[in-house]
């Protein structure tokens, strides 16, 4: 009978994991995502500068070449309901109020309506299961098998006097008995790890956000002639 203390020793779990390229397993995909995002940040910035700004070159007072970037503006229309007193009066002679839609226009930098943050890796998920098993099994088995086979035949004649009948037949019998004893001893060392690494929504580069914010903060509506005679204040 095997003994717990005998038999081959189990490999330690820590030892098993040292061989695994954890850095590559987890870091690889994340690193690739980070690099891709880095590239996209450059692409975002270049795209923004190339398409959302007009470049103007000139010379400064000292005669050096200068480049000025002027944001390209787009015109937006805003409509708002304004409550005004109408010329008609109610039963009590009070002027009635009416809501009129006032349309205003304002200019907005083009870069604020292009969803630049869509450029970039927004989700990175690294999932895997690791299972390390170390086991040792000792199996002792004994079995016995017995088989018997019996066959008999009979041939009898029964009869008495004036009648007889002859019967011929055979019977056979098989028997098998098996007995087995099995003793199993198992040492098992088992570890299962689920690794899940997630990198969430990646934001626009700080510089891009600052530029967008600076422009959006300075949005100021200009009143246009509206659909009615009213003007926004």
């Amino acid at each position, binding site marked *: 009978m095997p003994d717990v203390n005998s038999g081959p020793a189990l490999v330690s779990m820590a030892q098993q994991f040292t061989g695994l390229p954890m850095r590559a397993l987890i870091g690889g995909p994340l690193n690739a995502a980070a690099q891709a995002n880095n590239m996209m940040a450059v692409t975002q910035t270049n795209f923004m500068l190339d398409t959302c700004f007009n470049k103007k070159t000139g010379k400064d007072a000292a005669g050096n070449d200068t480049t000025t970037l002027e944001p390209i503006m787009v015109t937006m229309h805003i409509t708002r309901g304004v409550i005004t007193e109408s010329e008609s009066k109610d039963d009590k002679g009070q002027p009635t109020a009416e809501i009129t839609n006032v349309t205003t226009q304002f200019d907005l930098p083009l870069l*604020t309506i292009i*969803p630049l943050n869509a450029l970039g*890796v927004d989700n990175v998920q690294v999932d895997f299961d690791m299972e390390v098993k170390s086991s040792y099994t000792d199996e002792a088995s004994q079995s016995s098998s017995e088989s018997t086979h019996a066959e008999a035949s009979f041939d009898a004649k029964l009869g008495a006097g004036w009648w007889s009948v002859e019967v011929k037949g055979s019977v056979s019998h098989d028997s098998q008995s098996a007995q087995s004893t099995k003793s199993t001893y198992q040492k098992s060392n088992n570890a299962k790890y689920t690794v899940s690494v997630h990198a969430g929504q990646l934001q626009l580069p700080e510089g891009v956000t600052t530029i967008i914010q600076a422009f959006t903060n300075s949005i100021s509506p200009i009143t246009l002639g509206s659909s009615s005679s009213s003007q926004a204040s």
Partner: protein
Amino acid sequence: MKNQIPCPDCQKPIPVDTELLLRGHEFICGHCGLQLALAPTSRPMVAGVYTQFERLLDKQQSHQSR
């Protein structure tokens, strides 16, 4: 594609979709009810830039799926 523009009146963010803006849709500020739309005169210019932007996005997505 979703984006946000601060409301020129109340400064609360108005979620806008550039594609829908180009198709003439209006977006309403959930806070003050202001309606926002792209002026028809600006549509061709925005459409041009947006096409370039979509091309860049496609390029990036095909690069990522490789």
